[in-house]
């Protein structure tokens, strides 16, 4: 058994750890709230942009579809955007994303390349020898739309220049503090027709009337679709950040609890050692006194 002095040091260090993890838990909790507020703020634009898109898609006498809306008959290359965190210590958050990617894409029928958003995902993908073509790590804690718009531009470019025939986005959806779910969403080609959202919108607004376009339908879609794609990525990044912080918060809470448990156990052991030492000391004195009395 360790000496009493060693045990005292150990107890003190475990207590310190519990204080650090508790502080990290509080920090993560406030970051979750911020990320969620930011996601909520984007919903107004996303909803409106979607309305306009469905509206345009439903136009009578519409010419051929915009390239960003057109499904390619033959898919040769697939691009996947993987959103993870830059930091660990968040429970299973990062590994869950990578495991999801492995499940979906490890035996995929088309050649794949990846864009990594987040350092952890990038490192894990590279270690698995995946073809990572771009890396957007170290995003600021509360990114603005400007901070992530480059990702959207790159995705649209890859698609339009034929290096990718379909683009998927993998991120972590924030459901509750204790529940986050890794999901995949197809970014491009954007699916507008046949979506239940179109019918939902029509039910509310009635069938779309013919529009006057200024300058032209093509130019307007050129403006809206890339922005909408960018916005979807922005929302995914915010959702993922909320999930990451929530996962970290729970992980830190568990760590604090285990640290405090450990402190209790160590205290018990320490007290036993201490008492044993006192008993030994008394036995020594009594033994010594008895020996003196006998002589």
């Amino acid at each position, binding site marked *: 058994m360790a000496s009493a002095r060693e045990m005292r040091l150990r107890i003190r260090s475990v207590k310190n750890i519990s204080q650090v993890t508790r502080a990290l838990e509080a920090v993560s909790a406030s970051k979750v709230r911020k990320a969620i507020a930011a996601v909520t703020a984007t919903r*107004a*634009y996303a909803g*409106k942009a979607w309305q*306009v898109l469905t509206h345009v898609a439903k136009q009578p006498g519409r010419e051929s579809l915009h390239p960003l809306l057109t499904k390619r008959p033959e898919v040769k290359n697939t691009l996947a955007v993987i959103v993870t965190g830059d930091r660990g210590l968040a429970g299973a958050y990062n590994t869950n994303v990578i495991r999801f990617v492995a499940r979906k894409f490890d035996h995929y029928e088309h050649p794949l390349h990846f864009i990594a958003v987040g350092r952890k995902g990038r490192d894990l993908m590279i270690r698995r020898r995946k073809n990572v073509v771009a890396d957007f790590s170290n995003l600021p804690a509360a990114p603005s739309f400007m901070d992530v718009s480059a990702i959207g*531009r790159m995705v649209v470019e890859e698609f339009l220049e034929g290096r990718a025939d379909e683009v998927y986005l993998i991120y972590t959806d924030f459901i509750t503090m204790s529940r986050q779910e890794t999901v995949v969403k197809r970014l491009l080609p954007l699916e507008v027709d046949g979506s239940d959202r179109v019918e939902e919108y029509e039910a509310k607004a009635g069938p779309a009337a013919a529009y006057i376009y*200024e300058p032209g339908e093509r130019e307007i879609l050129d403006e809206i679709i890339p922005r909408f794609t960018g916005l979807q990525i922005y929302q995914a990044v915010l959702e993922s950040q909320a999930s990451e912080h929530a996962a970290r918060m729970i992980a830190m809470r568990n760590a604090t609890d285990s640290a405090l448990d450990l402190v209790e156990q160590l205290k018990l052991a320490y007290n036993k050692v201490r008492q044993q030492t006192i008993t030994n000391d008394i036995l020594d004195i009594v033994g010594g006194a008895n020996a003196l009395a006998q002589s």
Partner: protein
Amino acid sequence: MTIRCEIVSQDRMVFEGDVDIVVLPGSAGEMGILPHHAPLLTTLKYGFIKVRQQGKEEIFAVAGGVAEVQPQIVTVLADAAENIEEIDEARAEQARERAQEMLAKGVPADSDAYLAIEAALRRSNLRLDAVKRYRKGGRPNTPGEN
């Protein structure tokens, strides 16, 4: 008779209300939208959106985007929009100087950095223009300008 007007940017709802007229900086020229306008979709230039509500006028600086007009509602999807009363003149001035400095140092054209700096420069120019033209104490809003 009013028309609903909603101005949203990617990260927030900027304006929402029932108004008498909306003036948009359309890519083909300024246009005034009254209630019962025919359905219209237009891209927007960098410029100013003016909404009039019972004789009271509010002006928003908008950095491009798209507007959808329907008989009862005008929806503006702006890349960036703000009420000109919210503009921080000193900050816009700084941003402009910073952007000009960076461009003067030389950035490869058509790189992402160049586009970002150019966009920042255009935004700060727009903001400063807004302050000069419309802010109280600046040049009065002359009628017939629209």
